């Protein structure tokens, strides 16, 4: 009787383990290739996880990174950042992994390419235009009294 119960128990465990082993989720290696760096652990892993997670936007939050948000989505994404860092994936590879699914929206710091480059260029262009306008206006103002004196003379 006991032997039969043990066999059934082993069978149940084997079936459960087999089912668990078959579960597979999309792997980073298929999407962004093999890890480009060394596997990390301990303090180095914690530091890398925090640094990379701070650059990834939480898709269900308002402008928060996955490092800062307490939402389940952010927690899951941060766990993935940690798992990928532990396997030796670089920051660029991890960002590429998330970008592949969410697009550049998921990056808190937009890349300098395409339309996004305007985000970087526009403030400097606006500043340069402002300086030019001030410069031209001052030149005109300086020239104006001189002309007036000339007219009065």
């Amino acid at each position, binding site marked *: 009787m006991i032997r039969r119960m043990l066999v059934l128990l082993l069978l149940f465990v084997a*079936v*459960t383990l087999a*089912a668990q082993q*078959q*579960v*597979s*989720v*999309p792997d980073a290696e*298929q*999407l962004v290739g093999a890890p480009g760096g060394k596997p990390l652990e301990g303090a180095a892993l914690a530091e890398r996880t925090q640094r990379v997670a701070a650059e990834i936007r939480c*898709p*269900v939050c308002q402008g928060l990174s996955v490092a800062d948000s307490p939402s*389940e*989505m952010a927690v*899951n*994404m941060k*766990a*993935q950042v940690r798992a990928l860092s532990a396997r030796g994936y670089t920051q660029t590879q991890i960002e590429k992994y*998330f*970008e*592949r*699914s*969410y*697009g550049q929206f998921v990056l808190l710091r937009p890349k300098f390419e395409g339309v996004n480059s305007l985000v970087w260029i526009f403030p400097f262009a606006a500043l340069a235009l402002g300086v030019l306008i001030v410069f031209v*206006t001052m030149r*005109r103002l300086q020239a104006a009294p001189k002309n007036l004196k000339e007219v009065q003379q």
Partner: protein
Amino acid sequence: MNRTVLISGFLVTAALVGALFAGLGRDPRNIDSPLIGKSAPSFALKTVGSHEVLDVTDFRGTPVVVNFWATWCRPCWEEQPLLTAGASALKGRVQFVGVVFQDDETKIQDFLNQRGSAYPTLIDEGGKTAIAYGVGGVPETFFLDKTGRIVAKYSGALTPELLEKYVAEVTGK
């Protein structure tokens, strides 16, 4: 100088207003996904209420509708009868698959027992599949053609018209 500034200001404002008006005409739920046109991330997940594991690649050769949902999401409740009816009506032609997003298996089982379902529902532990699909909220539905390529994505509860439209896109009919 004043005239130049006025014209420049007018042109910049007109461009901004034009861009805003162009945005108003778009369906806010029809969000672009970088995955559209690409091969869908493959996954094999445990089915709710059993130890059976279902591999989505087993459905290659048949268009697949992958619906990410949760019992805590009210629009998912509204959408579920439509998907169930669609799965029954299109049985053998289109495969429907539900993937549970941040939820408890017992709650899902109770929900499905009460409301019924005509397609498998899978558990996504840790949300890795949802992340690979770029899911930001539920419901989100992906439409895969028979080769496993993502043809369309819709964020929000589907309507019969939208379901019909996207199914036509993946079946080519």
